[in-house]
């Protein structure tokens, strides 16, 4: 599904290149559930942002669903991204001024779905995630777990093929975390959504089908579960 070849990401600091990712290559197939692990500063989030096209590598080739991403223009990249990718954040990043319903609806607006269609899709996912009763509340009125649930619902609303999650349970207690992981597993198994998550927790990593360990911007080890 996606392929990264010789990807590097660095920042120039007073003439010196400060590498975040260093000549990293990686292939991920459709239907995989990959967990990326590693100590702070090993480049996990940068890797995820590059895969998610929120950031561009300094060097290297990036292929996604048959497109050479490194050659695409911003607009085309954005269109590709909208179609295939959903993002889940550690800090949920819901829009404070929008209700649960409106937060989930927003990606559909950007993808030009019609009003009636949007209504049906949002109603469907609210139902699936069991948060119909919360739909008119604002993020500040929800617990962390509930907010993350909304965040995931928002990421999934447009039926992406790839779900990227940057420490999705980092701000949650263990019980809430487990629930989220169960949900990920179910999405992966039953709906066939490819998932890549960054995590610090061994336990959460083991929900996936492959664990990649990063160190100093390089893949240190990769094991299939």
């Amino acid at each position, binding site marked *: 599904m996606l392929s990264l070849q010789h990807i590097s990401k660095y920042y120039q600091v007073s003439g010196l290149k400060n590498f975040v990712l260093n000549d990293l290559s990686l292939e991920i197939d459709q239907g995989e559930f990959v967990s990326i692990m590693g100590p702070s500063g090993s480049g996990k989030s940068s890797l995820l*942002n590059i895969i*998610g096209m*929120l*950031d561009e590598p300094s060097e290297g080739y990036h292929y996604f669903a048959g497109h050479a991403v490194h050659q695409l223009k911003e*607009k085309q990249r*954005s269109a590709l*991204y*909208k179609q295939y990718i959903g*993002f889940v*954040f550690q*800090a949920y*990043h*819901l*829009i*404070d*001024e*929008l209700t649960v319903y*409106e937060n989930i*609806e*927003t*990606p559909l*607006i*950007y*993808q030009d779905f019609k009003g009636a269609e949007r209504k049906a899709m949002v109603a469907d996912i609210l139902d699936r995630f069991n948060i119909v009763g919360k739909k008119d509340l604002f993020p500040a009125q929800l617990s962390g777990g509930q907010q993350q649930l909304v965040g995931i619902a*928002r*990421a999934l609303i*447009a039926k992406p093929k790839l779900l990227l999650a940057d420490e999705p349970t980092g701000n949650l207690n263990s019980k809430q975390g487990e629930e989220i992981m169960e949900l990920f597993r179910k999405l992966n198994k039953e709906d066939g959504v490819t998932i890549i998550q960054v995590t610090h927790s061994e336990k959460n990593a083991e929900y996936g089908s492959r664990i990649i360990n990063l160190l100093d911007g390089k893949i240190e080890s990769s094991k299939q579960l």
Partner: protein
Amino acid sequence: MIKNYLKIAWRNIVNNKVYSAINILGLAAGMAVALIIGLWVVNEYSFDKFLPNYKQLYQVELNFTTQHDGEHTQTAMAIPLVDVMRKEIPGIKYAAETDWVGWQWHSLVVGDKKLYLNGGAAAPDFLKIFQYPFVKGSAKDALTDPYSIVLNESTAKALFGNADPINKFIRIDNQQNLKVTGVIKDIPKNATKQFTFLTPFSFKEQTESWMKSARTTWTNNSFNAFVELQPGVTVEQIAPKIKNLVYEHSPQMRPGKPEVILHPLKDWHLYSDFKNGKAVGGFIDYVRMFSIIGILVLLIACINFMNLSTARSERRAREVGVRKAIGSQRSDLITQFLAESMLITFIAFLFSILFVQLALPYFNSLVDSAISIPYTNSIFWGIMLIYVLLTGLLAGSRPAFYLSSFNPVKVLKGSIKEGKSASLPRKILVVTQFSCSIALIISTIIVYQQIQHAKDRPTGYNAARLMMTDMSGDLNTKYDALKNDLLASGYIESVAAASSPVTNIYSHMSLDKWPGKSASDEAVNIAAVFVSDDYFKTLGMTLKEGRDFTHSWTADSTSVILNEAAVKRIGLKNPINQLVTWNGNTVPVRVIGVVKDALMDSPFTPVEPAIFSHGHVANNIMYRLLPNANTQDAIKNLTKIFDSYNPAYPYIYQFVDEEYNHKFNLEILVGKLAGIFAGLAILISCLGLFGLAAYVAEQRTKEIGIRKVLGASVSQVWLLLSKDFILLVGISCIIASPVAFYFPQHWLQKYDYRITIGPVVFVLSAIAAIVITLITISFQAIKAALTNPVKSLRSE
């Protein structure tokens, strides 16, 4: 999608009440100023255009070129010119001679109703040229009968109540009865020519003895004339045919090199200043000046919006990041932020309409207009829609482009800290704002300095308790008896009569010969005033040398008194007992005295050369109350005396000091308007500064906390937060000063008697601006400085 944007915009407005209020009210004030100035400008341009054929209407005027006064343009001309134009110039559809319509005061009496109103005499075609709508009667025959009169609606109502006035009679000046043949609608306020009634020109010719030869005398330049050109005929076609008419027909007028010109009606109001025979400007200068001020105030308000929106960007940054991460493109975000600024602009616009509606009555009384918001005019709303869109775009584009440029990865990590790149444009904008505001304030002060300067100018006479009344009806013939009665009343100190009031010069004549005149010297155009005895004593003017006129009307019939300016103009040494000739007379007159210069006309121009002659042709009577007289009692008593001598006229009086003050009306109006707009500009700027200070204090909460823990005092923190702003305002003062020197300096050139702009006004304005700035930001700065550092640091 727009609905979604507007929803979030609305929630942002509601959630940040103080910030929104600053934004909306500041913008509303700016929009209201621009709107009210816009309405005023439209009103100024609408002058006289209510007449359907206004494009073809012209006033006939004359250019003269003389040695002493250069080229000057006047509206006064002689009747034979009108007859020639009417009969011999093809392309002129109608021509009408008039007297000074609107400036001729007459008494109109019906039964016990006495009115003293301004009107004039006009030839019948006047009403065909000026197609004032008739309520009763018609333009065709309203002024054909010499003993007829046309009234405006309010005058008709005042004289006849609700009864039909047509064919009823009015007694004019207690001499003749005139039949009402027409009633026209009241002249709208946006008309240059204002009058309440018209009498036929033929009536004037038949009843006023001095008019007998006026129709054939080319030198009697005492009238006005108006023409309408045939449709399709342009002024360029007519101009060469009329240019030399006076020169050709009248050998006596040739020394002045007269040229006939046409002054288009559409320019009367805005282009009425003539220089070298051409209309070069006039009120249009003020229209342009205030248009610029309106745009500046709106710009200042828009800058507030830009600065506050971008300053708050950190709060919005996360939203931008999230939206980009869930699929928004930059263009979507730009649309969103523009929609948001449009919404705020629209709300501000609603407030501005309210502000304008509330301010209009005051504004109308200030500028003497009848401006209203044209609620039912669809063109107005179309323009307002464009106005809102443009303002929204102007205010919202910078925030929109700035906010939408954030990199999602960085803002979601929370690492966005705006650096110099964002705060530099903001500083430039603040400097722009304050430069405009300070320049406006300096200019306003200079206008007031100029007014005060002219008011402080010695007038050369004493205006205190000095009163004037028109010498109307029978007063002139009974003057000596009236004078005795007034002096005997116990309220009056002194009485005199003259052909001009104290504050105006009604006639100019030529001073033809004087001792020492060289062959190349032309005659001098000189202000001519016929006075009674006691004139100088009553006005409080002092004789420099020589003597005053005697009490006998006949003894001094060949004596004149000159003012200092006249003596200086003709270079007369030892003027007393010299012989001069004037007004085309062959018999010389003797100079018996020289009076010190007095301001008889504009307080802004040099004193004109004037000649005073002892004569019985008075238009005004002037009298001074005794110092201890009670004004109300005096007026009651004076009313009785005047009524007994002049029963057909109401007793109307003016105080000379009030009349003199009217000469500053335009300047005071300009000063007031400039002051109001400058005040609003600085207020709006400070509103923005208040918001910015709040933002900076909030942004530096942690820094302030740490500094306080390290031992900084409240005043040190206050200084820390204030000094950046003070620096900006200081720079603004430096930028504003040359601008505020150039434009007022240009304005002052209009005035011969003017101030020189000194450094004091700039220093004072700078100090004032800095003090205002300090007061504005200190509220936030002190609040931040007083905050317990434990609180601000705990939240980190």
